[in-house]
C-alpha cells in the first residue's frame, strides 16, 4: 500500500519532501507556493525547514520561500523559549508540593532536546501529575496567578468527570496555555492506560525536578494521542512526531520488544498498529516486520483495516488551502464520529450530543433576538 495513492492529495509534495528533502530541489515557485501554504496550515513549516537543513539543501530553496520559513522558525523558537519560562515558573510554584511531574509531548521533546523539537510549533505546555494530587497542583498554580477559563456547568463537568486533563490554565500575558493532565486518555474512553505504570517507568528529565515518560511510553502516548484521542483531521504533524520519535528513540535493538510489551500493558496495541501502518507507508517510518507480526492478534479486521486505509489518509493529510473536497469532508466526518465513539460510552455520547444540540439551539435563539449594540 502506498499512503498517498489513495488521494489526489495536495499535501503529497509536502509529505514527499519531509521523507526525502532532496526532492525540494526541483520545485518551481508555483510548487513552493502550495507546499508552503499547506505546511503552514499543518503547522509543519518550521519543521520542513529543519528537514531541509538536516539534508543540507536549504541553499536550493528560493529566497522568498526561505524567508517565509525563517519567519516561522522565529515564531517556533519564541514559543519554545516561552515554554521553558513557563516550566521554570511551574517548578518554582510547585516546589513545596511533593508530587512527581512528567512532561508530555512537545514540552518533553523540547527539554530532552530531541531532533523533532527543532522547529516544532508549540501551542501549549502539557504536564502529567497523579490524579489524587491534581487538585493540590491546580490550587497552587491558581494561587500563584494562573487564570482558569470561565466555563459553563456542562464544560466544567466535562473536564472534571470525563476528561484526562483539567481546564487549561494560562498565566496572564503568557502566550502558551498550561495543560495539567492526570491521564493520557479520557477517563470515559474504552482504553485506559495505566498511569501508575507511566510514572513508575518515567525518568528524570534534563530540567530540574521534571520527569519524562520512558522512550516507549513517549511513542505510545504519541500513538494514543493521534489514533485514540483525535478526529485525525489535518493531523499529519502527529504522524511526523511518531515518525521522528521512532527514528530517534528506536535505535536500540531492544526498543521494539519493550515497545510491544508496554503497548500490551497499556492496552494501546491498536493505536500503535495504526501508527506503524500509516507511519511506515506515508513517512517510511522504519518499522520491523516482526513488530507488525507480533500485533497481528490485536490488528483490526480486514474490513476495518481496509476502511481505515481508505479513510485515514484523506482525513489526516492537509487538504487544499482554499477548498475541502467532498471526499475529504466525508473522511473527516467519519473520523470525527469514530473519535466520539472511542471517547464516550454510547449512553454518555447520546447525552453529550443531545446536550450540545440543545445548547446550540439556545445560543442560536439568543443570537436571533436583537440585543442592544455595544457600540
Amino acid at each position, binding site marked *: 500500500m502506498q499512503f498517498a495513492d489513495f488521494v489526489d492529495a495536495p499535501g503529497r509534495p509536502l509529505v514527499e519532501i519531509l521523507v526525502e528533502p532532496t526532492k525540494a530541489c526541483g520545485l518551481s515557485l508555483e510548487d513552493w*507556493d502550495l507546499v508552503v501554504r499547506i505546511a503552514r496550515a499543518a503547522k509543519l513549516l518550521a519543521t520542513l525547514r529543519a528537514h531541509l537543513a538536516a539534508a543540507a539543501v536549504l541553499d536550493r530553496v528560493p529566497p522568498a520561500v526561505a524567508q517565509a520559513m525563517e519567519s516561522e522558525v*522565529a515564531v517556533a523558537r519564541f514559543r519554545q523559549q516561552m515554554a521553558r519560562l513557563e516550566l521554570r515558573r511551574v517548578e518554582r510554584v510547585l516546589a513545596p508540593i511533593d508530587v512527581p511531574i512528567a512532561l508530555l509531548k512537545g514540552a518533553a521533546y523540547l527539554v530532552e532536546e530531541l531532533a523533532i523539537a527543532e522547529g516544532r510549533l508549540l501551542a501549549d505546555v502539557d504536564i502529567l501529575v497523579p490524579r489524587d494530587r491534581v487538585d493540590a497542583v491546580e490550587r497552587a498554580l491558581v494561587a500563584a496567578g494562573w487564570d482558569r477559563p470561565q466555563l459553563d456547568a456542562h464544560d466544567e463537568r466535562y473536564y472534571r468527570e470525563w476528561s484526562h486533563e483539567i481546564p487549561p490554565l494560562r498565566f496572564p500575558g503568557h502566550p502558551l496555555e498550561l495543560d495539567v493532565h492526570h491521564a493520557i486518555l479520557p477517563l470515559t474512553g474504552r482504553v485506559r492506560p495505566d498511569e501508575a505504570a507511566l510514572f513508575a517507568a518515567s525518568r528524570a528529565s534534563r530540567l530540574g525536578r521534571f520527569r519524562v515518560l520512558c522512550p516507549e511510553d513517549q511513542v505510545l502516548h504519541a500513538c494514543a494521542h493521534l489514533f485514540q484521542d483525535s478526529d485525525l483531521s489535518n493531523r499529519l504533524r502527529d504522524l511526523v512526531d511518531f515518525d521522528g520519535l521512532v527514528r530517534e528513540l528506536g535505535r536500540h535493538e531492544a526498543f521494539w520488544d519493550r515497545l510491544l510489551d508496554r503497548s500490551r500493558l497499556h492496552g494501546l496495541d491498536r493505536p500503535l498498529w495504526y501508527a506503524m501502518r500509516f507511519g511506515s507507508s506515508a513517512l517510511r517510518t522504519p518499522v520491523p516486520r516482526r513488530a507488525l507480526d507480533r500485533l497481528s492478534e490485536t490488528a483490526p479486521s480486514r474490513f476495518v483495516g481496509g476502511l481505515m486505509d481508505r479513510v485515514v489518509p484523506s482525513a489526516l493529510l492537509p487538504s487544499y488551502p482554499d477548498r475541502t473536497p467532498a471526499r475529504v469532508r466525508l473522511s473527516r466526518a467519519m473520523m470525527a464520529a469514530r473519535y466520539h465513539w472511542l471517547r464516550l460510552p454510547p449512553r454518555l455520547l447520546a447525552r453529550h450530543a443531545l446536550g450540545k444540540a440543545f445548547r446550540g439551539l439556545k445560543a442560536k435563539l439568543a443570537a436571533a433576538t436583537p440585543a442592544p449594540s455595544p457600540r
Partner: protein
Amino acid sequence: MQIGDLDQKAIERELRGAGVAIDFGLARVRVRAEVTGFGAALQLLYAHFPFEHARGFFEVSASLARGRGLRRYIRPQLHFVVDGERPFEPFPADTHLPLFEWGVNFCVAHRCNHLLLLHAGAVERDGAGVLLPALPGTGKSTLTAALALRGFRLFSDEFGAVRLADGAMVPAPRPIALKNDSIELMRRFCSDAAFGPTFPRTRKGIVAHLAPPAASVARRHEPVRPRLIVFPRFARGSALKIETITRSRAFVKLSTNSFNYELLGPASFESVGRLVQECACYSLVYDDLEAAVRAIGDLVASETRDEHSVGAGQRLPH
C-alpha cells in the same frame, strides 16, 4: 501594463478567477474577491503597481468571501480568508478595501518575522531612511502621508521593517489609511492627492485611503539605510518643538512599540541597538503639518550633509 490601466471587467474577472497579484516590496499578496466595488477601489489605490498574473510564490494568498446563508442578504458581511482560516471577525460587505488592507497588515505582522517590524511610519529622501515610530492615534499616518505628498519616498505608514542581517529598511508602499478629520486635512494639504473611495462606517469611523505615489511604487524593491528616527506627536495648538533624545530612551521607545521585538529575542535587541547607534534620534511635537514636513526635511538635509563629508552612502543590495 499597470493595475490602473486594466479595464474594470478584466480586473473583476481576475478577482473571481486566479486572483490579482500585488508585489509591494516587503511581500507579495494574491487576492481573490467575490464582491462588487472592490476591483474598482483596488484599481484606484494600486494603480501604479504592475499587473501580474497570480502565478509564483506569495507570502499571502487571501480572499474576501461573502457571508453564507442569511448573511448574504441581510446586512451582508465579508470575511477575510487566508489559507482556509478566518483570523478575525467579518466586516460589513461594503467595507471591502479596509478589510483587505487590515487583513494584509495582520498577515505581514504574523508572517514577516524575518524582519524587525516596528510600529512606525517610514519614508526616505536623498538616500536617508526616516523612521517615525508612534502609537496609534498620534497622527503617524497623517504625517507619513504629508511627507509622501511632499516628495519623500513612501516606505509604509504602518511598518518600519528593518532587515536583521544588515539593518536596512525595507519598503512596503501601500495605500495609507486616513481616518475622520485627517481625510479633509489631507485633501486641503494637497489638492490633487489620489484618494480611493470613502468608507463612512468602519470600526474606526470614516476611512479613506491615499494611493502610494507612483515613484515610491516603482522603487519598492530598493531598501535604504535608516539615518533618522523621529518620534512624532500631534498636539493641537502646540508650537513646533524638536528635541534630541538620548539613545537609551530611543531604544526603550522603539522596543516597546514593535510588532515582534519580544518574538525575535536577541536578534531584535541587536537590531534596535544598531538603529539607535546609527540614527540621529529626535522627538517632534507639532500642530502645523507643513511646518512638521519642513522640519523633517531639514533634519534629513543636515544628516545627509554629514554623510557626504564622511563619504558614506554606499548602495545596498536588494
